[in-house]
């Protein structure tokens, strides 16, 4: 304000002097008195105007200074806030980087799990197919065992029939033996008659001897046949026992095969459920992998956004610094036009506000 007053007074005096000189130099006393009066009036008017302007402008200037100070303070607050925000953005960026790195590892792990789960699905499907084939093979085996059992039973019946026939042969052998014994008896009697007949019975006696020998031969043969038949019967009995044992073993095998079929069928159901579960897991892991990939991309976007935000904050910080500088200058200018009152103190703390993190700060 002092400057304005001085300037106005200087202008007024200057004008007055010039006019006075001009008047003195050019006009007569009357006109000079008139002009001098006019000049005096002008000077007084100017002084009055100056005082009036001062009274009218001063509040405005003071308001202007207050506003400027306020702006300065606000600029400082904004700078501080922006600085905090910059710090937060930096920390956020670091966290985003860490999260991004973790998510990339997670995505990689999810990818491996997806691959492994797919392998499990493939193996489960293969196991299911193998189990089904196994069940079918065991079922076929059961049928074959049934066939074998039927054959063995048929063979057993044949063997038993053979044993019965051999017993019938034995009966025939007994008949033959009886005949042979009777023949032998007849031969003995013939020998007795031949001996009784003396010389005349000698030929008859020879015949009797031959008949007896023939009978002995038949008896020996029938004895051999009986022995063979006995051996056959013993073999038949052993075969029957063996077949019965085999039949029992086959029956046990059939039962085991049937149980195995049932267990395999249950296993098929279980493996099928396992395969379905594996497929669900694989699908879920694949979805998880996709989701994690999307998260990684989103984190990258966030990271870029954070970086942009950080850059913007830094730019804003720089601008705020410039604004603060301008406000300081403005405040200094406003102090210059104030009347000689206690000047408003400049906010030195705000003027010395710390630089924005990562950005340029321009302070005056």
């Amino acid at each position: 304000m002092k400057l304005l007053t001085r300037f106005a007074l200087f202008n007024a005096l200057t004008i007055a002097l010039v006019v006075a000189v001009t008047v003195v130099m050019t006009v007569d006393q009357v006109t000079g008195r008139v002009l001098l009066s006019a000049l005096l009036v002008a000077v007084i008017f100017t002084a009055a105007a100056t005082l009036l302007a001062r009274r009218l402008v001063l509040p405005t200037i003071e308001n202007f200074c207050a506003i400027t100070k306020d702006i300065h303070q606000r600029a400082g607050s904004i700078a501080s806030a922006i600085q905090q925000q910059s710090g937060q953005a930096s920390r956020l960026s670091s966290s985003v980087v860490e999260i991004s790195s973790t998510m990339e590892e997670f995505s990689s792990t999810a990818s491996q799990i997806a691959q492994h789960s797919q392998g499990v699905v493939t193996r489960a499907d293969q196991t299911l197919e193998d189990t089904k084939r196994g069940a079918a093979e065991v079922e076929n085996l059961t049928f074959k065992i049934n066939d074998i059992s039927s054959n063995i039973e048929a063979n057993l019946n044949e063997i038993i029939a053979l044993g019965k026939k051999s017993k019938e042969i034995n009966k025939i052998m007994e008949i033959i033996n009886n005949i042979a014994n009777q023949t032998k008896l007849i031969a003995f009697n013939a020998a007795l008659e031949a001996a009784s007949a003396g010389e005349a019975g000698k030929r008859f006696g020879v015949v009797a001897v031959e008949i007896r020998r023939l009978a002995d031969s038949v008896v020996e043969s029938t004895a051999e046949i009986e022995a063979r038949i006995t051996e056959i019967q013993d073999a038949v009995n052993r075969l029957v026992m063996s077949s019965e044992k085999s039949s029992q073993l086959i029956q046990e095998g059939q039962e085991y095969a049937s149980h195995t079929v049932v267990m395999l069928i249950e296993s098929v159901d279980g493996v099928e459920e396992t395969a379905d579960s594996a497929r669900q897991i694989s699908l879920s892991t694949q979805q998880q992998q996709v989701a994690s990939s999307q998260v990684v991309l989103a984190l990258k976007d966030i990271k870029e956004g954070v970086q942009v935000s950080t850059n913007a904050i830094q730019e804003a910080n720089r601008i705020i610094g410039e604004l603060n500088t301008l406000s300081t200058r403005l405040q200094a200018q406003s102090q210059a036009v104030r009347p000689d009152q206690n000047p408003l103190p400049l906010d030195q703390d705000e003027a010395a506000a710390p630089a924005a993190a990562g950005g340029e700060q321009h302070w005056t």
Partner: protein
Amino acid sequence: MSAPGAVDQQRPLTLLHFFLGGAAFGVDIEQLAAIGVYRGEGEEDDDLYWLHRALGYETPPPYRAPRILSIKDNGASELKPYRLIIEAPEDVRDFDWRQIRPVPPLLAPRLNARGLWGVLPLAGTMILLLDCQRLNLSM
């Protein structure tokens, strides 16, 4: 005991050879009329005798295939034809008289009383020669 009476030792001795209770016996076929089959209890008759009883043994040995010998009479009035049950004969063979040995003197009284008059060695066995016409059928 001598050989069965009225035998012609110029001719060979034709014996009916059989086993009974593990012992070998031989009977001159000149004493036999016929040989038949023993068919069991239906054959019981007054003139039918078991050999083991005639020899003085109450416990019967096993008879595998019993046969009935029809014994001729000896032409004397004291012996009538009868039938004797033996085991099935093995053979009818001729033997040389010179092969026959008498029973040992120590056993001769006992054996002679039972119609056993000699011993014939044959292939490691001893055939006891039996005179059916001198058996003690009352035993």
